[in-house]
């Protein structure tokens, strides 16, 4: 498997439940992003890791959302006390290198996503 993988692919949660979504990046990829895609919309940025450091979490919609990447590889997005408005596809993307000194960044490769439905 050379690509980004995510699990589970589908998750149904009752309102108020906690969920954990996993992202396995391409081996050796330094940068990792989480995006949220609502139905009929383009993906929207949630958070960014460079190795194990979470450098930007400005897109997380509330303090119920938490992400980690403790060893700089696998990442987990956790949503506490899920609400119906959290229903969306959650996408993980990884990049081989950190940004260049010029500011230019490299190609992002996306996983298949986790479709979360909150009832």
């Amino acid at each position: 498997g050379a690509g980004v993988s995510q699990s589970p692919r589908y998750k149904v949660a009752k309102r108020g439940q906690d969920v954990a979504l996993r992202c396995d990046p391409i081996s050796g990829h330094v940068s990792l992003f989480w995006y949220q895609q609502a139905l009929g919309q383009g993906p929207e940025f949630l958070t960014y890791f460079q190795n194990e450091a979470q450098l930007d979490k400005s897109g997380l919609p509330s303090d119920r959302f938490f992400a980690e990447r403790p060893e700089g590889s696998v990442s987990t997005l956790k949503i506490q006390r899920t609400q119906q408005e959290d229903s969306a596809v959650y996408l993980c993307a990884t990049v081989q290198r950190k940004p260049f000194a010029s500011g230019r960044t490299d190609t992002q490769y996306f996983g298949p996503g986790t479709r979360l439905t909150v009832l």
Partner: protein
Amino acid sequence: GIQVEQSPPDLILQEGANSTLRCNFSDSVNNLQWFHQNPWGQLINLFYIPSGTKQNGRLSATTVATERYSLLYISSSQTTDSGVYFCAVERSGGTSYGKLTFGQGTILTVHP
């Protein structure tokens, strides 16, 4: 933040037709990518093209960074080209780390 507008929002073609999708953006960019989202939701990289022209088989793309737009050309369309095409950009300057801002997408339907 940067604005990304894609046109047309919907496009219906007969197999074999050619098409052009457009992406306008409101600021200078470090990164521009075109993606195809297939019916199963997978975002597939088509082009990494912050400037210039690239071709890959029946697809080609051109980005004119100074005029803040990019075009995706699909020639001799096939039913497997159906899906949503997204343009995504990273604004230059600041510390965006590669954070992509997506357009709303163009929904392409190719009929046999």
